[in-house]
């Protein structure tokens, strides 16, 4: 992954969020406060502006910048969580072009950042429930000899499955936890946006 690919990834995320804003809003209406769509759209459109500003030389520069922009523009739970994740991913991609293994460890750093900040574990009905299987699938595909594109494709599928699987969970973190048992039966908005982020990665790596 080079700076151009990292940039393409962020642009693809922004496009995907734009397309799915209403879906994220609806999901957050059901078990949260109906702002996840607007939050993510505000954040990634700010990222597009931030990336347009300056030439960024490494994928790390692009993604650290993305993370910092998310932190300063999103607010809510998603802002610091995704912001920290992208900053961690970016910090792990210092060179001009990262191989698939390095992308794996960067994504893992991102997950670690989310978990450290939010203290969620799998099953809590959060971002973590899409992010964890995505990283696992990514890793497995590399083990099985696949390249970046194949790994990203598997990660996207796993993230989507992970997001769907949150439907039957009872939330234990974030706003949905206030609903207790009433949170069951609705897909988690954050897990859903995580799946969009991995799907965007799969799309741009295949080009």
């Amino acid at each position, binding site marked *: 992954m080079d700076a151009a690919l990292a940039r393409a990834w962020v642009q693809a995320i922004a496009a995907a969020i734009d397309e799915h804003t209403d879906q994220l809003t609806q999901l957050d*209406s059901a*078990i949260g406060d109906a702002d996840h769509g607007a939050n993510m759209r505000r954040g990634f459109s700010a990222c597009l502006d931030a990336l347009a500003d300056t030439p960024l030389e490494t994928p790390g520069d692009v993604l650290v910048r993305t993370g910092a922009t998310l932190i300063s523009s999103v607010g809510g739970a998603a802002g*610091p969580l995704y912001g920290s994740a992208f900053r961690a991913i970016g910090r792990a991609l210092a060179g001009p072009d990262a191989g698939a293994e390095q992308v794996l460890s960067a994504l893992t750093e991102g997950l670690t950042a989310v978990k450290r900040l939010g203290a969620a574990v799998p099953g809590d009905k959060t971002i973590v429930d899409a992010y964890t299987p995505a990283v696992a699938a990514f890793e497995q595909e590399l083990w099985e000899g696949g390249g970046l594109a194949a790994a990203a494709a598997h990660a996207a599928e796993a993230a989507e499955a992970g997001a769907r699987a949150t439907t039957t969970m009872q939330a234990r973190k974030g706003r949905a936890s*206030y609903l207790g048992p009433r949170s069951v039966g609705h897909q988690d908005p954050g897990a859903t946006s995580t799946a969009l982020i991995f799907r965007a990665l799969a799309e741009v790596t295949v080009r």
Partner: protein
Amino acid sequence: MKKIINDPSTVVDEALQGMALAHPDLLRVQRDPAVIARADAPVRGKVAIISGGGSGHEPMHGGFVGAGMLDAACPGAVFTSPTPDQVQAAVEQVNGGAGVLLVVKNYTGDVLNFETAAELVAMDDVEVRTVVIDDDVAVKDSLYTAGRRGVAGTVLLEKIVGAAAEQGADLDRCEALARKVIANVRSLGLALTACTVPHVGQPSFELADDEYELGIGIHGEPGRERRQMEPADDLVRRLLDPVLEDLPFAAGDRVLLFTNSMGGTPLVELYLAHGIAEKLLAERGIVVERRLVGPYVTSLEMQGMSLTLLKLDDELTELWDAPVRTAALRWGM
């Protein structure tokens, strides 16, 4: 959706401009990042009290900025906690050199953003402390959840700690007082109607004509339980009993009773409910020494109310009575 707005994405910014124009004597408003600061900030040598949270709860927090209460408020997007940048900018504007207390309502987003801000601010060698209020008894606390929410009790905390800071209390005392309020305040709310977030355009939940939601938060989220509509006597009892049991409040306790409207409930209903709550408390031998009645912590146009009880002692009562001069709470000056 019908609202007096131009565009959902500019609502908060335009409202801030209007607020600045409405209260030039009290407030100074910065737009990007958004900060509402008291007009005479920074007050040299005074601990700065800063709060913030999503917009849509007005007058909280911007309406509580001024002498004797908050030095600054950081308004996020509607129902979205502010970003660390806003908090950092607020600190820059109002830090008077005696330290900063961040008053945070317990939500994952608020806590994370304020924590991040606190780290950034500490790097600039400003002494900063954070207190997290979680007064909503609707949510059961546990190690494995996000914990209780911060709701209407926040106003009482901000008033009391703000008064102490104005009187010259140091950061330790301000923090200790905040923790004392948090330890002694409990709230519970209900909704008769949902609210509509501008960029969503639809009510955040649907309630039938004979239903209400018990245990709602302040972000348009559904409550813990949907119930059949009841007379005011019963509604008030459903709010009061869990609040009383939780602390618990007992006969002989002196309290401040705060009867809060969620925004769309008319004052005539709110006073009626307040009267019922006072009578129920009197029956239990709990002494209401101070009261606050009105729409102070709202959820846009939501119809509904919350009850908050704060156990008082002489220290808290005196600080509650101290002069305050803000857009929404004002006495003694």
